[in-house]
């Protein structure tokens, strides 16, 4: 008997011939922000809808604090969901949208009003009480949707692409607000998103999903630094993946003709990952005496850093350089010869 807050055990869901979820197992702890990350059609939304109770799994169980909630209808589950399009009631004003869920509980009018006022203050919605929900901005709608859930004091809050409908500026600000709010209230958040940056910056832990399966679960650092396979490596950030040759006791990056020395691992790996920001490049005038040399094929200046596409022996990889030493790397031009360098400890070896 484990005591995880939410346990998803062997959940399988089929829609006709399509297998949307394939024996998904997941444990989510109390008060964490957990993200389900994957491209569209990976089953993340289906999983969220099953947790919310809108869909029944064909197989498997959902346990919330040890209680089986698999067959409970959504209106009995002690959790709430914030929809991607917010699903605010267009015929009700802001206050009545927030009150809606409380009116379904048997609590006094006084209590309802207190809790509504409390949440209006918390989410800075004062002054909008009487407004119709289509008269307020997208950011305000998002906060009303959040308030409508939080006022119910749920044990678990599900958020379906919570920031997708906001513009970029607002999204970053709202990310921080969400995390702060979660810290303050201690409610467990499960966030569904296709945006890897959003998942990395919001989550305590995250699960990467593909084709109805969970590929890897871990905190953002683990997922970014130690992805289990090429798909995950490419999905999160930019990845340089190279092939590994194991000859006798040598481990060689085949594509770069580079021997990894400071590594004491006897396992046979066939691939390695080096993140672009871990590869430094430097312009060189002549090739003599330098072994790790490539040619710059593309340059993209992005303000705080610059992306370089480097080609070696027909293999291309990225190097991201901070623009702190402007004088140095801004001199690199297209088709320049550069020497590249990386630390052996920043190489992550894996099998795929």
């Amino acid at each position, binding site marked *: 008997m484990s005591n995880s807050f939410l346990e998803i055990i062997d959940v399988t869901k089929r829609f006709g011939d399509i297998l949307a979820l394939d024996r998904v197992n997941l444990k989510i702890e109390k008060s964490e922000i957990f993200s389900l990350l994957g491209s569209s059609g990976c089953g993340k939304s289906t999983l969220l809808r099953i947790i*919310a*109770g*809108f869909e029944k799994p064909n197989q498997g169980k959902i346990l919330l604090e040890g209680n089986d909630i698999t067959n409970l*209808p*959504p*209106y009995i*589950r002690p959790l*709430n*969901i914030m*929809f991607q*399009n917010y*699903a*605010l*009631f*267009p*015929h009700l004003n802001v206050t009545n949208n927030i009150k*809606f*869920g409380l009116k*379904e*509980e048997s609590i006094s009018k006084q209590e309802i009003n207190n809790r509504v006022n409390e949440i209006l203050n918390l989410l800075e919605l004062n002054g909008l009480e009487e407004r*119709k929900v289509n008269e307020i901005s997208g950011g305000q709608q998002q906060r009303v949707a959040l308030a*409508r*859930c939080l006022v*119910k004091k749920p044990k678990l809050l599900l958020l379906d692409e919570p920031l997708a409908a906001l513009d970029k500026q607002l999204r970053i600000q709202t990310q921080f607000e969400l995390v702060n709010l979660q810290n303050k209230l201690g409610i467990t958040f499960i966030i569904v998103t296709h945006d890897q940056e959003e998942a990395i910056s919001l989550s305590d832990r995250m699960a990467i999903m593909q084709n109805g399966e969970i590929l890897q679960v871990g905190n953002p650092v683990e997922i970014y630094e130690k992805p289990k396979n090429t798909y995950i490596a490419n999905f999160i950030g930019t990845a340089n993946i190279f092939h590994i040759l194991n000859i006798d006791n040598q481990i060689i990056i085949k594509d770069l003709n580079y021997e990894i020395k400071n590594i004491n691992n006897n396992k046979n790996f066939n691939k390695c990952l080096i993140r672009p920001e871990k590869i430094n490049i430097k312009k060189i005038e002549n090739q003599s005496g330098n072994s790790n040399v490539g040619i710059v094929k593309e340059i993209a200046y992005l303000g705080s850093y610059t992306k370089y596409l480097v080609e070696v022996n027909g293999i291309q990889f990225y190097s991201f350089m901070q623009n702190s030493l402007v004088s140095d790397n801004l001199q690199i031009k297209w088709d320049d010869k550069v020497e590249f360098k990386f630390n052996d400890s920043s190489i992550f070896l894996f099998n795929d």
Partner: protein
Amino acid sequence: MIRYFKKQNFWFVFTPYFWLVLFFFIPLALIFKISISVSEWGMPPYRDLFSLSEEGFKFDSTLSNYLFIFSDPFYIRSYLNSLSLAFTSTILCLVIGYPIAFYVAKSQANIRIILLVLLIIPFWTSFLLRVYAWKVLLQGSGIINSILIHLGFLTEPISMLHNHYAVILGVVYTYLPFMILPLYGYLVKFDLNLIDAANDLGAKPVNTFLKVILPLSLPGIIAGSMLVFIPVVGEFVIPEMLGGSDKLYFGKIIWDEFFVNRDWPVASALAMSGIVILVFPIVIFQLMYAKYNFKNE
């Protein structure tokens, strides 16, 4: 408002109004004229309002037609019968039509098209034929009686025709699509997430329906009800074909006054009073509703 009067918009906006004036207001004015004319033998069977004779210009008008119909409970009762028929059938159409409209609106796109076509197919046959078909079905030697007798529920045929139940049946059958289509129009735009959201916030299915689905489909309910209620008040063919002598309906009375009694002024007065009694409440209701909608936009 001003922008509508730009030149290129003129015909676009005013063509329907010309149409209305030509085919609606002018005939209506003629009916009004007849309704305040004096009845007499001849062709047409009323005296002109204005006439020139040896005695000079003469204006000949009367309100007696109106006084006559309002003093005779026969006409008032027929009008109330029609209102009650319209009311009953509107409610029945709503109760039957709402679930159908909801189901059609929420089915998958390819199935939805088939269902919509099925709803519209009856219009390909003349409405008279369809009502006549009910006559065949319901009559003593009709298929329904035969089946019931065959199954042993009845020993001899019962009379299902020529009573006001048959009229309600015919009216509901005929007008059901007029309820379903506007309802469908509103329900198809309905965001299904709202149902999930209400459920998630703790509302049981009944409350979800009453607090979310119903208020949001109210405009469709009103539109559908108007489309059923208004024409049914003046409905004359269905009572004529399926009805009996147990209840007389307004439409049939007007017909009889026109074509049997040839009392055009009384018939016109009946038609005018029917319109006035019906139109004013509806206009007031529409204005109130528009105001309510405007406030809630």
